[in-house]
């Protein structure tokens, strides 16, 4: 019968229309500013810099190695390396970024910077309501705005943060163990040098 297909199709439309009153499945629209979809743990928007402790400036993990600047596909990161060094979280002397800018109007949220960073210092934020009327100054994020605490990172990506904390702890433990071993070896060497005829250190320790 001519028109049968159309009538069937109309039936389908009616089913969807009427169904939207009773079934949440058929009414999928979210009233955005009032209602919000839950964020996924893996969600990524724009990068931020992680700092440990209280001071965003002193606790910054970034050592200004500039790998992310080089690897960033749209080249939106701008780093100026510091002239002096300071103690980092591992207790080693390291450079720090004097300037760290990200132009988020150019950033394409690809997460390459996070992946290539060997220091767990740049991570992806989930903040997305960043619209601004000023394309240049308004979307150029500088170091003070970029620095966010590790607690913030734990809150937005709990799983990843746990992994990153573990990796850092392992690194620190490794460095400390190495430092300890180095110190011991040094002490041993010094002891051996100063008093070659002295009794072995085990013996003195045993006393």
């Amino acid at each position, binding site marked *: 019968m001519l028109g049968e297909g159309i009538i069937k199709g109309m039936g389908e439309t009616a089913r969807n229309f009427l169904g939207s009153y009773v079934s949440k499945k058929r009414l999928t629209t979210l009233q955005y500013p009032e209602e919000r979809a839950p964020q996924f743990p893996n969600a990524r928007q724009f990068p931020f810099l992680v700092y440990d402790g209280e001071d965003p400036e002193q606790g910054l993990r970034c050592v200004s190695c500039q790998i992310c*600047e080089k690897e960033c596909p749209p*080249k939106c*990161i*701008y780093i100026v390396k510091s002239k002096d060094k300071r103690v980092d979280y591992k207790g080693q002397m390291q450079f720090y970024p004097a300037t760290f*800018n*990200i132009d988020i109007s*150019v950033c394409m949220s690809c997460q390459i910077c996070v992946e290539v960073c060997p220091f767990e210092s740049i991570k992806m934020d989930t903040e997305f309501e960043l619209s601004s009327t000023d394309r240049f100054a308004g979307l*150029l994020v500088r170091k003070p705005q970029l620095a966010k605490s590790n607690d913030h990172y734990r809150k937005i990506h709990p799983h990843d943060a746990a992994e990153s904390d573990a990796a850092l702890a392992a690194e620190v433990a490794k460095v400390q163990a190495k430092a300890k071993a180095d110190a011991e070896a040094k002490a041993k060497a010094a002891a051996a040098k100063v008093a070659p005829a002295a009794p072995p250190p085990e013996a003195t320790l045993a006393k």
Partner: protein
Amino acid sequence: MATARTSQDCLTNVETLEQIKDRITHVLPGARLEIVPNESPSGQRSLLVDHEHAGAIATFLRDDAELRLDYCSNATGVDWPEAVVKTKIKKPVVTDGVEKEVEETVDALRSGYLEAVYHLYSVAKKHGPVILRLRTGNRTDKVTLPSLTPVWRSCEYQEREIFDLFGIKFAGHPDLRRILMWDGFVDHPMRKDYVEPDDFEYEPTPHDAVLERAKTHYPSEVKT
């Protein structure tokens, strides 16, 4: 060496590239063919074809009952600018009466040329790829190659793109115009020595070359 064949090299499983080459020279005497090696794990070697016989070879490959390469998947250009190529050769050297092989690096000047590469497959026989290469004489005035569009129409837009971006002229192409760039454009952007026009737009995170350019355009805003 001639029978070295990885799983990727010429999936025909019927013939090696050498056999195909022999058959072409048998059917088309005078055709100058050369196998271009490929040292990557993909092992996809290719066949360098001369200009005069390119059309005939393409037709043969398409219509041959065994090969039936009726589908040209990919046609593209490559720009090889003039360069010094370092090649390692093993040389027997006699030292203290003992013959030893010593590797030596030889510098050779490679003259620049443009290349068109065609990846051929068979829809009928479901095999491939057989890769054809055509090379121009140089990068300036001898840049005409025979078009393979009369054999495979899938080359029509792709050859136009090669003409547009690399500047290879295809003799026998039915409609050779620019395709991605606009008609008034003069240069060929995919060439290695292409210089971008100096139309810098301010951005707050300039780098290296862009930074230099930014300094000339916005001296007040760019800090040194």
